């Protein structure tokens, strides 16, 4: 019964929304009722446009997430292990986070062209910081006693990395990846807003330009669903990878 509560809650909210939109006769371009959005969703699926634009955004998001997560993990490990490197780079990395992504997105489009590469890079940039920070925290929180144990067993650096640091840092790293997965969607859409002729960000622009508000909602809902699925996949990965830990705790 408890598992059904979220579904009941969303059902009640949609009914309330439908009722308010119909009762108050709010024009469609201001607040379309869920039934109008559903009808627009069906039309977008029937003509294939929603699938086409979703696949484009999804490919950018996955590539951006992979690029951002891998590069942030590598650099994060380096920063966690070397205080010199951390002192040299940290101020700039932290400062870079104050740059609004919408401000540099047009520059990336100029530098790397209007194709998918610029969107992937924007997505990677937005994923980078949470994964980087979590990697550093994950590696730094490995208890020193465990290092002592590994050294007393004459473990090599590679063995310490593989058998101690990776398993110990993984829970925190996956926490960063969960945040990164949802942010990567925002990154790709920001890129598509700046200059694109495909993708869900483009579809939102088209909907706005044509005063087709139900289409805007369709694109936004698809983006939310995409972010939720990505988050769920990382959560599944977390459960699988950390199964040993759960068993141990249990």
């Amino acid at each position, binding site marked *: 019964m408890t598992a059904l509560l979220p579904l009941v809650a969303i059902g009640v909210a949609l009914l309330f929304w439908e009722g308010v939109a119909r009762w108050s006769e709010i*024009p*469609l*371009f*201001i607040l379309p009722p869920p039934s109008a959005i559903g009808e627009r969703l069906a039309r977008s699926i029937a003509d294939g446009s929603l699938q086409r634009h979703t696949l484009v955004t999804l490919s950018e998001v996955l590539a951006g997430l992979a690029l951002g997560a891998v590069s942030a993990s590598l650099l994060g490990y380096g920063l966690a292990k070397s205080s010199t490197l951390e002192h040299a780079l940290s101020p700039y990395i932290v400062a870079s986070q104050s740059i609004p992504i919408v401000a540099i997105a*047009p520059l990336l*489009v*100029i530098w790397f*062209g*209007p194709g998918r590469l610029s969107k992937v890079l924007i997505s990677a940039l937005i994923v980078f910081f949470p994964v980087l920070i979590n990697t550093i925290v994950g590696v730094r929180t490995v208890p020193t006693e465990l290092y002592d144990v590994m050294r007393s067993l004459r473990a090599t650096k590679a063995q310490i990395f593989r058998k101690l640091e990776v398993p110990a840092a993984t829970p925190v790293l996956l926490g960063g990846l969960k945040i990164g997965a949802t942010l990567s969607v925002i990154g790709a859409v920001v890129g598509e807003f*700046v*200059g*694109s*002729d495909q993708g869900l960000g*483009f579809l939102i*622009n*088209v909907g*706005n*330009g*044509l*005063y*087709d508000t139900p289409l805007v909602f369709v694109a936004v809902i698809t983006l939310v669903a995409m972010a939720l699925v990505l988050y769920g996949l990382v959560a599944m990965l977390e459960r699988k990878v950390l199964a040993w830990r759960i068993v141990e705790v249990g």
Partner: protein
Amino acid sequence: MKSRWLALLLFGLVACQASESSSGIRLPMGFIPNIQFAPFYVALERGYFSEEGIELEFDYSFETDGVKLVGAGELPFSLVSGEQVLLARAQELPVVYVMAWWQDYPIAVAAPVGSGIETPQDLAGIQIGIPGTFGASYVGLRALLYSAGLTEEDITLDSIGFNQVESLISGRQQAVVVYVNNEPLQLNASGSPVNVIRVADYVDLASNGLLASESILAEDPDMVRGMIRATLRGIRDTIEDPEAAFEISKQYIEGLDQLSPADQDLQRAVLAESIKFWKTDRPGYSDPQAWENMQTVLLEMGLLAKPMDLAAAFTNEFLP
């Protein structure tokens, strides 16, 4: 404690709303503060709006947001490009175009001098950069292609954002879609002279002007007439004395007076080029044929599903 915070939040929202509504009319301009809005700055500075009982404030939000606010009856007026009127009415927004400001559609395609791209026919087979496949730029390009018997299939179109100058100079694009009164001047000034293929030379389309809500036309026609009168006086003054208009505009465009002399001259050139689009024997008049042409282009593009009642989309009734 929670309810106290909620009450404070609600009070704050109401206070914001109240202070906004008591300060007069907000006019969505559809773009950032810019020298092309000089007629409005002049009309405000010289008190033309005040004489009509209108306290005007400028709102530099997106064009489509302005149209929606007018359609929702939240604001009485907005500045729009012609195609927006038909697109909005197709979605049942109760809006009417009441005053033509720009006499010609200001969109063009620019290509480097020596590229051999000089007419719409020359666009076949080339790579063209456009801010996005929506809005006035897209409509203008499609109209230009239509006039030459071409379609989008005949060109390679790249959405590049508002990076036309950089894209053309760097050679990433063979041609770019521009506003006649802006990017070509920047390109020429930066030592990259361009051929300009103007949409207006091949097809007459309804261009930028003043949009009003159907409710304000019915409830306060005198205010609509006053708004148009004041705006037309600002346009006339700007045409007659561009330098005075430029000086007045410095108060409204942050940083304009801080520009180098060369950059200020570039802005003067933008104003001079814009003024060419405003000159007419019939200020404010909407040509029905331009609206017919606009509808034809939008139907051909698939942006309109069926022809509409154009007589309801624009009116010359409120002109002086």
